[in-house]
């Protein structure tokens, strides 16, 4: 499959090239190669245990790859740690919503803003003046995001007290506060009620139309149908096929492994 990386290299934003990862005796990812082109929502689907989340973890620097490479904007980021990957502009969300429970929604969003000098010890102690203006700007940006997602009412609630779906939204908004070049979404619709899921989907389409690139793991095929093009199918740690959903429905291997009748 390493040819896929070669073909797309010229236009790809993210290249995943021959990633391998073992956990003890279990081979979670055997050989994963694919590319993500700018401005797309690329889907990553496959049965449970196919290695999708491990791939996301390896791209985002949370898990180290045993072998293979990840390149972002042509730069090798395989050995980057999680915070370094996000500094490059790849922001991820988690399979189970990972909000700061004892921070309010606004504070969660403020944490999304790129790490900045207000978080240095010396500035915190001596130079209030040099962070208060930036802080006010960020608060303003946070509120305009909340407005866009119609969540202003929850602004000052503790994120830990929100529903599962609302936590997801907070996570997505927090990621957007970072002004990322690319989003890694690990099952953004899981456990979200249909109405809220639809609103998340609409936001994602809006973002794509504005030029955002996304790589999205999703189990519910109706969302994959609606949002993702192209789609990468993984099974048993390998990339099985790649293409639009129509193409994949034609592919017997994929139908057998995952899509079913």
């Amino acid at each position, binding site marked *: 499959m390493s040819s896929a990386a070669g073909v797309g290299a010229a236009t790809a934003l993210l290249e995943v090239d021959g990633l391998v990862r073992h956990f003890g005796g279990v081979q979670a990812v055997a050989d994963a190669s694919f590319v993500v082109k700018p401005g797309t929502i690329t889907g990553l689907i496959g049965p449970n245990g196919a290695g999708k989340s491990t791939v996301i973890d390896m791209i985002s620097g949370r898990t180290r790859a045993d072998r293979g490479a990840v390149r972002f904007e042509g730069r090798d980021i395989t050995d980057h740690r*999680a915070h370094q990957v*996000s*500094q490059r502009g790849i922001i991820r969300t988690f399979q189970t919503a990972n909000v*700061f429970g004892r921070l309010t929604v606004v504070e969660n969003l403020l*944490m999304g803003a790129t790490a900045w000098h207000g978080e240095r010890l010396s500035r915190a*102690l001596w130079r209030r003046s040099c*962070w*208060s203006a930036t802080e006010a700007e960020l608060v303003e940006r946070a509120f305009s995001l909340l407005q866009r997602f119609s969540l202003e009412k929850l*602004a000052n609630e503790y994120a830990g007290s929100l529903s599962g779906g609302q936590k997801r939204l907070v996570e997505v908004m927090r990621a957007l506060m970072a002004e990322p070049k690319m989003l890694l979404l690990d099952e953004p619709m899981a456990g979200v009620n249909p109405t809220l899921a639809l609103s998340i989907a609409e936001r994602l389409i809006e973002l794509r139309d504005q030029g955002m690139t996304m790589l999205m793991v999703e189990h519910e095929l109706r969302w994959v149908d609606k949002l993702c093009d192209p789609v990468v199918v993984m099974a048993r740690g390998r990339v099985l096929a790649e293409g639009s959903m129509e193409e994949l429905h034609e592919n017997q291997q994929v139908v057998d492994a995952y899509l079913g009748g």
Partner: protein
Amino acid sequence: MSAATVYYLSGLAILFGINLIAIWGLDLHFGLAGINSFAFIIFQAIGAYVTAVLSLAAPQAGSFESYILGTSWPWPVALLCGALAGAVLAVPVGLIAVRRLRGDYQAMAMLVLALIANSLIGAETGWFNGPSGVEGIPAPFGNLNVSLYSYHWVFLALTAVCCLVAWWIARGISRAPLGRALRAVRDSDSAVAALGRDPNTLRMTALLAGGFLGGLSGGLLVEYVSAWSPASWLYGETFLFFTAVIVGGRGNLAGAALGTLIVPIGIVEVTRQLPQFGYPGEFDSFQWIAIGALLLAFLWFRPNGLIPERRRIFRPPSERPGGLLASRPRIRRAQSP
């Protein structure tokens, strides 16, 4: 009030201040950054030892004392070095127990560190005079020609100044974006890393600042009581501080102050005035039982403490009257979820 009562109360106030500095330091570790700092007492200990050996003169030949340095430095320099030693100690403690360990394992590693440090300092007679410890540490402003009673006021003023410094550090950190980042680390490591911050750097920052306060508290304590030995910093003392933070309310400076008033002052110091009973040491054991029971009661029934952490309220730009002041978050008391 009789002179003796005033003397006693001003002494209590000094001990309150000294404990408060340490408990604010622990609150930076445990309350704000979520580090299970069960080795906190060693920050106070190193501050005390360093301050002591820097202000003492070199041990006399023929005496049974032996300790390092003995430079007879002026007390403010020694005190500052003691506080800095606390901050420096944060580096090895961080490398051992904070970089790789979390939760229960971190707590265990910290506790073990405190035990090892105490045994090591007790056994190694060359560094700080082993189990007997150091004594006769010169008092600050020792050449002032005042009565013992008036001297208490001088030392109280010094304590107040140190408390102000500690307050400035603790409050500066907790209200700045740094404080928010530390509270975020407390909730989720992985999310902090996914947002471009190194959680370890943030944790080390908290450990360093809290270590500085621990060292400052130790230095001040040794200048007040003028002696320091391994028996002064058994690991149990750490639980005293933890109880104060949990009873008062973690993540809240006023809460920590209230906890200091209740636990190390109320339960430990004031009860010394009660008539002793039983065999020697029985009374002390009851003190520890009281502290343990209080800790349990709060963990069960009021885990956020008497004054819980405050919620920071932000107003949307449209609701603000404008101006720089308006961008300040309003702080409201509220229970954590």
